[in-house]
């Protein structure tokens, strides 16, 4: 059940009413959420009804044992067991055929969230859940399971206890985010993909260098609007239940350098990689500084491989890892130049960072390294023809690029205005969006790019 389908929104409305109907009783709200979680998974495949509860129960029990256990070897064994369980689950669903049919939803985001629970308890950074139901509600919380944002379970658990009331401000914000997510997904991301991006990445040699370049720019924006659109819907979906999820994007293409980019792009993932992978790698406290750089590359290559077992993702991960290591080395040698840069230099840094990221996206999107190479060759060829670029594509590209740089206060102003609307106006705005989507984007959306990871 994609987060953009009518089925999902009917499901969400039903969960909303059931949840607030049961809101006086913590057990009631938790039961509604757990039921919703498993219903959501079952809509993808009934096999999840066995896999997820079994894995969650194991992690819950391991968490309790980790909390009580004081012997370090046993604790290490327990946390290793949890890591093996979750990594094994992710890998088996994603890379191995454990069932005679293909499971449509990779369990990566479920696995990442579950690991925050046991590793945090192992590190004594968090306490175990006081209720089995609260753990089940958090570990498989339906808005986050398709593609995040990866939410630490320790930040979700307390939110089940403080249920009082959804303010009209929160409710308005939730609806606004859902509407915004739909616009991003249908009217920008899918449009860019359909009109040029997919074609260029399928058969780059059919297009001129200029068209391929436009397609690559289009992809950068498509990916951002697709993923951030999904995240907006996910955050909005959680917020209608009064649950706050972490921010996942912060105008990433405005980044001044590659480290800055990773503080703005898929924030929950980069934080997860930093906290649970990078800090866990050996050698970080060694006197040899090389480990700090090497571990960056290793972390990003593993991050790349998580997206898929292919050389394109290895290249993408290595590209970013080397970029991050080079930036850190530069800072170590010259200090952080951020404060001393002129406005012009900052713009140049932003452009350079964006194009560095863009080269990475070519490998990220291409079906093989050969196709990525063809795309780069075509761009370098300098051939110019705009026969396959429509004015509408250019317009959407410009709007998408400009919207990316909209100041936060404009966004906040729009949100504030929407929240002040009476309920019927709030509903009318989203209904109008549904009509616009019907006419502009058509009948079906492509799956979210990150849902396959």
């Amino acid at each position: 059940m994609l987060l953009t389908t009518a089925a999902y929104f009917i499901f969400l409305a039903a969960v909303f009413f059931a949840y607030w109907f049961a809101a006086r009783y913590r057990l009631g709200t938790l039961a509604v959420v757990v039921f919703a979680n498993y219903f959501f998974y079952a809509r993808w495949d009934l096999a999840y009804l066995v896999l997820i509860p079994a894995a969650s129960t194991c992690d819950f029990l391991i968490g309790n044992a980790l909390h009580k256990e004081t012997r370090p070897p046993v604790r290490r064994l327990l946390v290793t067991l949890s890591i093996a369980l979750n990594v094994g689950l992710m890998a088996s669903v994603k890379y191995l055929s454990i069932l005679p049919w293909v499971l449509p939803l990779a369990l990566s985001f479920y696995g990442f969230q579950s690991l925050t629970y046991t590793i945090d308890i192992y590190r004594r950074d968090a306490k175990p859940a006081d209720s089995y139901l609260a753990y089940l509600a958090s570990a498989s919380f339906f808005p986050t399971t398709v593609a995040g944002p990866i939410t630490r379970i320790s930040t979700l658990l307390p939110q089940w206890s403080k249920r009082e009331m959804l303010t009209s401000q929160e409710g308005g914000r939730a609806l606004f985010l859902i509407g915004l997510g739909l616009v991003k997904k249908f009217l920008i991301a899918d449009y860019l993909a359909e009109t040029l991006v997919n074609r260029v990445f399928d058969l780059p040699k059919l297009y001129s260098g200029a068209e391929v370049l436009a397609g690559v720019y289009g992809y950068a924006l498509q990916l951002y609007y697709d993923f951030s659109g999904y995240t907006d819907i996910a955050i909005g979906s959680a917020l209608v239940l009064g649950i706050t999820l972490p921010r996942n994007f912060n105008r990433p293409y405005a980044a001044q350098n590659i480290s800055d980019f990773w503080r703005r792009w898929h924030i929950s993932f980069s934080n997860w990689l930093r906290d649970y992978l990078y800090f866990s790698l050996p050698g970080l406290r060694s006197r040899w500084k090389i480990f700090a750089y090497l571990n960056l590359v290793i972390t990003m290559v593993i991050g790349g491989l998580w997206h898929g077992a292919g050389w394109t993702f290895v290249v993408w991960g290595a590209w970013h890892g080397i970029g991050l290591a080079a930036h850190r080395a530069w800072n170590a040698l010259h200090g952080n130049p951020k404060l001393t840069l002129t406005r012009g230099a900052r713009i140049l840094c932003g452009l350079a960072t964006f194009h560095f990221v863009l080269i990475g996206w070519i490998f990220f999107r291409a079906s093989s390294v050969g196709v990525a190479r063809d795309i780069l060759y075509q761009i370098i060829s300098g051939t110019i023809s705009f026969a396959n670029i429509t004015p509408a594509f250019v317009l959407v590209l410009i709007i998408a690029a400009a919207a990316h740089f909209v100041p936060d206060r404009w966004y906040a102003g729009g949100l504030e205005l929407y929240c002040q609307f009476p309920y019927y106006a709030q509903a009318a705005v989203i209904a109008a969006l549904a009509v616009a989507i019907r006419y502009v984007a058509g009948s079906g959306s492509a799956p979210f790019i990150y849902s396959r990871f």
Partner: protein
Amino acid sequence: MFPKKTSLAIATLGALLLLLDFAKLARPFTLSEVLDFRPHDIPNVEPLAPIPATNRPVTAFKHPIIEPNLMDPHDNLRAFYLALWRTELGAPGAITRVLHYGDSPVTADSITADVRSLLQQHFGDAGHGFVLIAKPWAWYGHRGVEAQGKGWRINAATQVRAKDGFHGLGGVSFEGDTGATSHFELAEDHAQMEIHFLHQPGGGVLAVEAGGQKLGDVETEGPDKQPDYRTFPLAAGAREIDLSVERGPVRLFGVSFERNTPGVIYNSLGLNGGQVQSVVRYFDKPQWTAELQHQHPDLVVINYGTNESIYADYIERSYPGELRQVIERVKTAVPRASVLIMSPMDRGQRDANSRIATVPTLPRLVEIQRQMASEMGCAFFNTFQAMGGEGTMARWYDSQPRLVSADFTHPLPAGARKVGVLLDQALESGYRQFKAREQRPARGAPLSKVTR
């Protein structure tokens, strides 16, 4: 406690969407979709036809497979089948030659490469055949041959055309001054290479090297413009070939690579944006006739239509006449050759509901091709129908692995292979039927019929 405002907003939104649904302004939806637990989010898995990897000769079946999409009521493919039979029997010099003209998929040697590979597996590999000397389009390619050219002025019949209409066998003319070069890398050994060039007043000299050894020069000076050919033997292991213009100008059309063994040569002759119109209007008739005659083809495949398929008026008014002219030219030039009209693949576009649907005019174009083939005594292969008919693009786009590009026009490698297998199966099935038919009345004496 209920969040009143948000509840009302959601309830109102639901009511509005129901109204919109009633007015058919929103996307149609039924409540039962929410409770549908079938795993419909999984893309269709389109089974790929396996490529039979065998070198066994094709046997004549007692009950040959009926191939509904290959129509040959006039037994026009007889010449091709007889040539295949000779090739299959391994008669010395028994090479079956196919010329496959087409548009962009053929330009990239997709589909044709798969048919070539299959026919060569079953009947023998007589070489790669014709290859252009540089890439007029980045998209151009020939599987098994790497070709790179530098310094050539390229005139393709579908782009910046040669003013004299001399576009050679492949529809592209290359003119180079001193220093222009081409480099070829072959995946396997070949026995000989033929250079297709133009004799012309003031023509220069082309140097030919293979495996680092100079093979000779091609003198292109001549009293008048005339296509000509020069063959060079290739030593074993000479897989890197270089052409360089020692003195300009030199005008080339391509090179052909052949082996001296019985087998099939399947020439891929694609033009990006190619249409029957390109042949009728921009191929110089006598020169193209001479090129066709030089090839002695056993089968000429005319595989245009994709680029024409979106022009409804043109299809009705001019297309049949132009297709007729192309067929007439081929039949006049090489009357002994079989001619196969191959319909385009399905082509999709988004309809009003944004669903991928077959271009409305495509079935009409295919029907015109079928009628014209029948009228002109040609065979007809209905690629469109063989793929699955209307809506195939949508199915192939949604399949896993995806078989067609997001332009709903060009096949991806897996899709091209599927179409290639379909064409090969149709031709080989037709060949088996032909053999079975021929062997029935006069058992034990088929050779007399296949000896040319």
